[in-house]
């Protein structure tokens, strides 16, 4: 009997970033078709070179691993490591450029909660629509309808258009539909990163149930704590290449300590608005995404680039612990309500802040350019990994930068008093 659920063999995925950045216009295509004979002649005249196109990006490079039936596999890796691409390939949303994957069983993929939800439709209507989109049959949805509504706790509002729902209700209903999908193989992306604590707990419980039923689960998250709790084995992605581990704890450890490959902070920009381009991001003068800080606690982030139209933006920096849990938040725009205007042209934004005493370990910075509450111009998640030598006092500071008060400790774990009073 075959107990393999997913077999991935030598899968690679190539993106032509240059061609992808803007949509082609018909005119450009026409011109390139007209000039094609010329280009063909040029290519023939020139000896073939194996020089890679600089705009090509191998999002996945020769990835191979196997998932056994009933395994709960965590996929970890930094931004740009290829996690989302891997999921998209597994979910058949996009095709691999090379390689082969065989999947035994019905796949349910959950790359987003509430895909296809329409704000004008009522909760009831959206349950049916979303269920069908996720691959459920009509009869299946009807038979699970009451369960879904009970799980989401929206019985009273089930016939109200979801545009009147609170975001919590919306998320609960969306997750409830997805949670009642019963595929043999479930592929889940970061869904747990949304919603309040109560809701996240519920999601985790549901995921646990799924795993208990002997289904195969592939789970991608930045939240290493969740991964460690839920998964049995792991796959670590690093710049498109994969290493798989039998034990999730080994994968997480190697991810935390590993990070062997360093790169430019710019490679972690995962979202950028067309209206701006960013040429350099430095933290304390370095553009490297690894930043050993020792006991230095002042951080200076500098972003330079160009804005293509007049806009308002301010920097926003979040501090995350090594498991990806948020610790602190530096956002002058939020605090003062003043968001500087930028005229079209080059800009350089420099902001400094002070961190509280940090425990020894790894921390990440998420760097954003935003108009707080209105628009995100640029987002670089886990852009820099900072290493503090620190004094091994407390393990978990939770703090917030408050106006006039500097960093405020929201709570610490009272431990190691001896070391603290030293």
């Amino acid at each position, binding site marked *: 009997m075959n107990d393999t659920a997913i077999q991935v063999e030598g899968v690679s995925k190539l993106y032509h970033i240059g061609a992808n950045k803007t949509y082609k216009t018909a005119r450009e295509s026409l011109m390139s078709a007209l000039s094609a004979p010329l280009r063909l002649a040029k290519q023939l005249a020139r000896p073939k070179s194996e020089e890679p196109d600089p705009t090509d990006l191998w999002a996945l490079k020769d990835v191979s691993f196997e998932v056994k039936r009933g395994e709960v596999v965590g996929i970890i890796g930094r931004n740009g490591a290829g996690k989302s691409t891997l999921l998209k390939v597994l979910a058949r*949303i996009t095709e691999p450029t090379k390689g082969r*994957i065989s999947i*035994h069983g019905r796949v349910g993929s959950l790359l987003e909660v509430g895909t296809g939800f329409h704000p004008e439709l009522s909760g009831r209507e959206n349950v049916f629509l979303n269920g069908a989109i*996720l691959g459920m049959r009509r009869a299946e949805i009807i038979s699970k309808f009451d369960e879904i509504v009970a799980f989401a706790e929206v019985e009273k509002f089930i016939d109200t258009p979801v545009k009147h729902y609170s975001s919590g209700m919306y998320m609960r209903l969306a997750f409830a539909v997805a949670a009642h999908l019963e595929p043999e193989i479930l592929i889940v992306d970061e869904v747990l990163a949304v919603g309040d604590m109560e809701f996240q707990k519920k999601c985790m419980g549901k995921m646990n149930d799924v795993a208990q039923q002997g289904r195969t689960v592939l789970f991608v998250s930045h939240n290493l704590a969740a991964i460690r709790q839920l998964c049995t084995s792991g796959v670590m992605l690093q710049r498109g290449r994969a290493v798989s581990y039998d034990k999730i704890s080994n994968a997480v450890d190697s991810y935390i300590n590993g990070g062997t490959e360093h790169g430019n902070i710019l490679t972690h920009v995962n979202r950028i608005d067309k209206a701006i381009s960013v040429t350099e991001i430095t933290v304390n003068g370095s553009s490297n995404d690894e930043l050993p800080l020792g006991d230095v606690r002042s951080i200076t982030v500098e972003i330079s680039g160009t804005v293509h139209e007049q806009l308002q933006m301010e920097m926003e920096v979040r501090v995350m612990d090594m498991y990806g849990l948020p610790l602190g938040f530096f956002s002058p725009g939020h605090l003062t309500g003043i968001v500087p205007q930028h005229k079209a042209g080059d800009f350089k934004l420099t902001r400094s802040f002070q961190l509280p005493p940090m425990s020894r370990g790894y921390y990440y910075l998420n760097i954003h350019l935003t108009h707080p509450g209105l628009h995100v111009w640029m987002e670089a998640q886990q852009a820099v990994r900072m290493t503090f030598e620190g004094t091994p006092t407390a393990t978990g500071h939770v703090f917030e930068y408050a106006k006039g008060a500097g960093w405020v400790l929201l709570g610490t774990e009272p431990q190691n008093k001896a070391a603290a009073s030293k």
Partner: protein
Amino acid sequence: MSQTISPTNPTPAPPPDALSTTVIEPRVGWQPIDLREIWHYRDLLFFLAWRDIKVRYKQTSLGAAWAVLQPLMTMVVFTIVFGKFAKMNTSPVIIFCAAVPWTLFASALSNAGNSLISNQNLISKVYFPRLIIPIASILSALVDFAIAFAVLLVMMGCYRIVPGWSVVLLPVFILLVLMSAMAVGLWLSALNVEYRDIRYIIPFLTQLWVFASPVGYKSSEVPEQWRTLYGLNPMAGVIEGFRWAMLGEVAPSFAMMGVSTAMIVVLLIGGLFYFRRMEKTFADLI
């Protein structure tokens, strides 16, 4: 506790022998059209069409009135332009009888052409046969058609026109209208993913096309020797056919009908294969 609200009887995973195997590999070149898979996803097809209809009627304040207003306005304008100014042999009911299938074609075409773009959130997040999207958007145009058709029946009653035996062919012509919309819509929707210009071309295209089709006039206005060639416009044969089915009168030339139908079939098969070929790039480009 939240965890207690788990399903009452979770279905255990089925035995491995019962599992289907999916192989994901890069596909090169032309792909066959997998009708079985589309059939398997028929529920989704139904729900997407139903969503489009529902949302359209919820968001527009005139709702169903639009379904009647469009062909009615076409009728008024064309009666003035073709009947009064150009002095052609036409009448309001003749024009309205063509404006109804034409409106179905034009709205189905524009729905289909923009369907992939307006459903890009689905395409980039979930797998299903992409053909479902344009097909659903075409089907959703049928509700408006049904309303306008009812008005056509009332109008025919006022003119005391009773359809002859040819009315039994009506479903064929309605199907041909949908097939024409799909034939052109598939090309446009797939091209629209890569070339966003298409979005602006569609209204322009239907505006010009209506004059090239026998909506405001009868195809008998076209000189005899050109009529077969005129059939290259797939809508020429279809609209004349629809008019003939409803109003009786003289049957359109079989040569023209044949050319139109052949044109639809060629465009449709070409469109299906082109769509299948481009399908795999949608998620990356959209």
